[in-house]
């Protein structure tokens, strides 16, 4: 009876499924955005950790290229310690910036060198200034950008390396600060191409091609959005193992306890 019922339902369900699939294909063909490919970032697997060397290079790209337009308001210099730099190096990096602090005993604000607890400096005073300098476009804060866009770091990589000539029929006004990028929703982005071969000089000798820098900065941004991911994966896999073992024990115990019930024979007499 089950088989018959299943066959019956399949007869109804399959055509519906076919229509639905067809509709999806038709609809996605309409979309104005090119979906980002799935890149093999080394941190993606359930058992893989961050590529800290790449994070270190990515921070350098952020600092030397992106930081002139993009803030990262949730990132402190201390966050770099133990991941991309040791404490001494991170302190040194922090000291390169000037931070307004105060008031002091005289009630005056004063400038001091940065400390580990300071956030990365923001390039603009406020949103209005940021827009005024960027032809009206607002460079978003990058702390959470890898989680705040569909496709995460795959999208970021595709975006950063995806600049090209506008195809025939699409007009972009470069004088008004518009650039063609098929991965950006709508295709016209207010950010010019940033990563050209050799834009930074890596201190570990890795050759700074555009795609290498894009990979590094994307790894850095993915880490910045999810800084405790390694810990969570480690603890998570331990818990997963623990609960899987508990499940096996519980399952075995259940079989044991239920054996008498499963072997009970119930007979009915008139």
């Amino acid at each position, binding site marked *: 009876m089950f088989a018959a019922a299943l066959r019956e339902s399949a007869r109804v369900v399959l055509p519906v499924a076919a229509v639905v699939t067809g509709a999806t294909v038709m609809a996605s063909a309409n979309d104005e955005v090119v979906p980002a490919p799935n890149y093999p970032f080394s941190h993606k697997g359930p058992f893989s950790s961050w590529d800290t060397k790449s994070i270190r290079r990515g921070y350098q790209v952020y600092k030397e290229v992106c930081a002139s337009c993009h803030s990262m308001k949730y990132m402190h210099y201390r966050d770099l310690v133990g991941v991309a730099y040791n404490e001494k190096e991170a302190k040194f990096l922090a000291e390169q910036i000037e931070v307004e602090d105060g008031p002091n005993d005289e009630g005056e604000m004063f400038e001091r060198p940065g400390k580990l607890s300071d956030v990365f400096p923001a390039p603009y005073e406020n949103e209005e200034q940021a827009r005024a300098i960027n032809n009206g476009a607002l460079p978003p804060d990058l702390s959470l950008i890898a989680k*705040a866009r569909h496709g995460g770091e795959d999208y970021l990589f595709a975006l950063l390396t995806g600049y090209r000539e506008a195809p025939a029929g699409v007009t972009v006004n470069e004088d008004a600060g518009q650039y063609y990028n098929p991965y950006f929703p709508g295709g016209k982005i207010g950010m010019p191409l940033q990563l050209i071969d050799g834009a930074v000089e890596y201190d570990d000798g890795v050759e700074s091609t555009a795609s290498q820098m894009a990979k590094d900065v994307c790894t850095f941004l993915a880490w910045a959005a999810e800084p405790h991911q390694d810990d*969570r994966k480690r603890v998570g896999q331990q818990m997963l193992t623990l*609960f899987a073992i508990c499940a096996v024990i519980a399952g075995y115990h259940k079989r044991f306890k239920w054996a008498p019930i499963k072997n009970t024979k119930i007979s009915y007499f008139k």
Partner: protein
Amino acid sequence: MQSIMLRLRQNSLFNVYVNHAEWYPSPANLNYFWGFGSIALGVLVSQIVSGVLLAMHYNANINLAFNDVEHIMRDVVGGDGLRYLHANGASMFFISVYVHIGRGLFYGSYFYPRITLWYSGVILFFLMMAAGFLGYVLPWGQMSFWGATVITNFFSAIPVVGGAIVEWLWGGFSVDQPTLNRFFSLHFLIPFLLAGVAIIHIALLHEHGSNNPLGINENIKKIPFLTYYGIKDLFGIMLFIVFFVYFLVNCPNLLGHADNYIEALPLVTPAHIVPEWYFLPFYAILRTIPDKLGGVIAMVVAILILLSLPFLDTSKIRSGLFKPLHFINFILFICVTLCLGWLGQSVVEFPFSNLSEVVTILYFFYFISHFRLTTQYVK
């Protein structure tokens, strides 16, 4: 020692445990679908514990809320795990409850004499939806803000007083500080109401006992709950935890929306406003009806129609195992609901809007078809 146990066993509270858990008479043939009630209860406890801990680090202030959630994620020890546990716990709650409801639909658990039990379940379902919706507003991301705006706006469909009701809900003229404040307060309250109604739910269950896969009266053969279902449910819960933890570790943001990692911007409407996945089938039904009031009514009726099943279903046989037509109908209903969920997050244009009209009708057809149709086939 023995005398202590004896004294304890005479205690009236302990008696509740003895009569309603330890020795509670249960049917011998419940399958694993009957374990999802226990699982849902477990998730409710987990939500309350993780929620109380989150509330220790959270301020319901429109300027602080988003930063507080980031503070929990970055600076609170174990805070990322805590927050993901709570955010995904809501989804797990709905997964377990949807299976639980599906079990009731298939095996006919809504039939007399379990009508009040079925009704208390619908109240639980409404409360859960309220808790989930209110909670999603708290991190004050783009989807929080715009989801709150869209959903509270449903009330404006009510003739004459609708506009006034919406402003009353908002505590102002848009979703703003007063809204966030009261949503936090209510989000804190509702899980405890849920716990209360869950106790009533179990009390009502124990009045007539569990239904069973055969749907027949089994008072001739009952087995004590703790020995058998204690361990069986524990096994189910362990498997569910493995599934849950796998989710937390590997894809904690899969069920969320990327836009919610952008702080709420009242002047920037997101390209697509989508509610949480567990509302999507009902959201699809809402959008199918071109008229606003009609849409809201259809959406509410889509849930309330559960209440009519004990009366619409004229079958003399409870369990779907013995009703082939019901069996097909049920599988179709699952597919229809999944399809509605998928339509709920698609854009409103050809072919989705046209498809959703058909699928919405199929959704209601499931309930209406129980009147006579399946019964006659059985004869």
